[in-house]
C-alpha cells in the first residue's frame, strides 16, 4: 500500500491517446489566482518603496531633535547606527538617509512617491479583486478558511520548520507532521492572513488618503494618527511573510513553485481521481 504517486511510465487506459502514457495531476491554483499572486510582487514592491518615501516626509516615530545634528527621525537613527556598526558601511556618504536610500525610492521624493503609491494602490485593489474572484471560481477559498485545530497544528508546523535544520545537521529523524488538507495549518494561517492584511492595508490607506470624506473609517482604527501607525505596521506583515514564504517554497521543491505558474501539481496524494475532461 504505497502512497507514492503512480509511476509516470504507467500505461493509461483512459487516455484519448492510448499509446501515450498518462500523467496524473491535480489542479492546484486557478489562473486568476496565479496571475494575481505574481502581480503582487511588483505591486507590493512599488507600494513599499513609495510608502517609505512618503513616510520620510513625516515619520511616525520621532523624538526631540538631537542638539548636534537636528535629527528627529528614528529611521535616520537606525541608518546612523548601521553606518557606524555594519562592516562596509563606515564610509557611507549620508548615514541618516541610509534607510531611505536602501528601502525606498529615496529621500525627498514625496510627490513622486505619492503618485507611484496611488498608482500601485489602485492596481493592488484591482489585483486583490482578481485574486478573490479566482479563489471563488476555482473553489480555492475553502482551503484557506481557518479551522478550530489550526492554532495547535500551526505551532506543530512551526516547531517542525524551526527544528528541521538542526535535525538535518544531527542527521536525526524529524518527521513532517501529518495532515490531509491542501495546506498545512501554518500555511493556511499565513495564506489566510495575508489577504486579510491586504484588506486592512487598503482600508487604512483610504482612511489616511481621505481623512475627511471617510472620517468614519479613520475613527474605526482609532483616529487619523492611529490609522497611520496601523498602515505602517501592516506593511511589515508582507515583509515578514515573504521571507519564510520564499525560503519554504524553494525548500519544498520545484513542483510547488511550478504549480503557481502552470496551475497543476503532480502531488496527487490526498486527492480523488476524476476522469480526463479532454
Amino acid at each position, binding site marked *: 500500500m504505497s502512497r507514492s504517486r503512480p509511476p509516470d511510465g504507467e500505461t493509461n487506459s483512459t487516455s484519448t491517446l492510448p499509446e501515450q502514457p498518462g500523467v496524473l495531476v491535480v489542479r492546484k491554483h486557478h489562473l486568476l489566482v496565479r496571475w494575481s499572486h505574481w502581480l503582487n510582487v511588483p505591486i507590493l514592491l512599488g507600494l513599499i518603496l513609495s510608502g517609505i518615501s512618503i513616510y520620510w516626509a513625516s515619520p511616525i516615530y520621532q523624538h526631540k531633535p538631537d542638539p548636534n545634528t537636528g535629527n528627529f527621525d528614528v529611521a535616520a537613527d537606525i541608518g546612523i547606527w548601521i553606518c557606524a556598526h555594519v562592516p562596509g558601511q563606515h564610509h557611507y556618504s549620508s548615514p541618516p538617509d541610509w534607510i531611505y536610500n536602501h528601502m525606498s525610492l529615496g529621500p525627498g521624493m514625496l510627490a513622486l512617491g505619492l503618485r507611484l503609491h496611488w498608482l500601485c494602490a489602485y492596481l493592488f485593489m484591482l489585483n486583490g479583486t482578481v485574486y478573490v474572484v479566482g479563489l471563488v471560481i476555482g473553489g480555492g477559498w475553502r482551503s484557506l478558511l481557518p479551522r478550530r485545530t489550526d492554532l495547535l497544528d500551526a505551532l506543530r508546523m512551526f516547531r517542525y520548520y524551526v527544528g528541521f535544520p538542526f535535525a538535518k545537521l544531527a542527521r536525526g529523524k524529524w518527521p513532517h507532521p501529518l495532515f490531509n488538507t491542501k495546506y498545512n495549518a501554518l500555511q493556511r494561517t499565513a495564506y489566510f492572513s495575508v489577504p486579510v492584511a491586504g484588506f486592512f492595508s487598503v482600508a487604512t490607506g483610504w482612511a489616511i488618503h481621505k481623512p475627511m470624506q471617510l472620517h468614519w473609517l479613520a475613527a474605526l482604527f482609532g483616529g487619523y494618527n492611529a490609522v497611520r501607525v496601523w498602515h505602517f505596521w501592516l506593511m511589515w506583515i508582507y515583509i515578514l511573510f515573504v521571507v519564510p514564504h520564499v525560503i519554504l517554497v524553494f525548500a519544498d521543491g520545484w513542483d510547488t513553485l511550478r504549480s503557481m*505558474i502552470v496551475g497543476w501539481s503532480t502531488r496527487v496524494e490526498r486527492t480523488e481521481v476524476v476522469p480526463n475532461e479532454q
Partner: protein
Amino acid sequence: MNNEERDDSLQGRDTPSTGMGPEVKSVSMNKPQQSFFGERPLPAIETAPRPLRYQSRRDFLVFGAGALTAIAGAGFLLPQDTLNRFGVRRNMDSPGKEWFLNQALRIDDDVAGALYSVNRTVPTYTKSQITPLKNNYNGSTPDPGYIPGWKLTLDGLASGLSISLDIRNLLTRFSVHEQITRLVCVEGWSAIAWWAGLRFDDLLRAYPSISQAKWARVESSVNLDASGNPDPYFMSLDLATARHPQTLLATHFSGQPLTLDHGAPLRLLVPVKLGLKNVKAVTRITYSAEEPPDYWAERGYSRYDGI
C-alpha cells in the same frame, strides 16, 4: 490492472476508476457529507504528457513575458535617482513617464471629486483636543511689513469690476464663524486647531463670480522660498469646494487675530483639502471658467487634493 494499481496508490477509494464518468464518487475525505465551507479534495486529472508539456511551456513563456514587462515597467516608472542606486546608469526619463503618472493622479483626483459633497461636513473637535500647529514656512517667515497695507483683491466678478477689501471691510460686512477642525498636511502630519473667519460662500454671494466660473485662483504674494527670496504662491480651488460651509477665509486662530506665522491677516481654511491648499496671507482671488495653474501641481503633486 492499471486502474487497480492506481486505486492501491490512492487510499480510501472504493470505486475503481473507469475514467468514464459520474459513477466516480468522492470518498477520499473522512466525512461523506461536505459542508459548504468544508475543504474539497483536489480533483486529480489523468492527462497525456504531451499536451501538458505544451501547456506548461506556454504558461512559462507567458509568465516570463509578464516578468519582463514588470521589470520594463519598473524601469519606466521609477525615478532616475532610484534607478541609479540600483546600478542603472542609462537615463530612463521619458515624457511618457510623467504623462502616465499624471493619468494615475487624475484618476485619483476624480475619485476624490466623486467623494466630495457640499453637504458632508468634516468632524469638529472640542477645545481640549486642540494640538500644536507648526508654522510650515520652514524658516522663511515673511517680513510683517506687508500687513498694514494688506488688501484682498477679487477678480473675475460678474460685475466686471475688480474689488479691493481691507480686513476691516471683511470683518464688519460678514458674519464670523468658528470651527475646530483638523488640518492635514500632504506630508502626513496633521493638527487640530481653532479657527474663526468668514465663509467663502458668503463672499461669493456678496461678490458673485462670472456665471461660467468653476474655479478660483487663490494667490499669496508674500510667500518666500527656502532661501528667503520672494516665491509667490498660487493655488487652484474648485468653486464647489469654496462653497462648502466649512471653507473659511480665516481671520482668527485660537481666538486671536492671525499671527504672521499663520498667514495674517487672512488665510484660506479649507479642511476638505490638504494643507497646501490652505493659502496663508491671501492677497488675490480670481474666478475663472478654466482651471488655473497650481503651485504644487507644477511640482508633481495632485491638483484637486480633496481629502
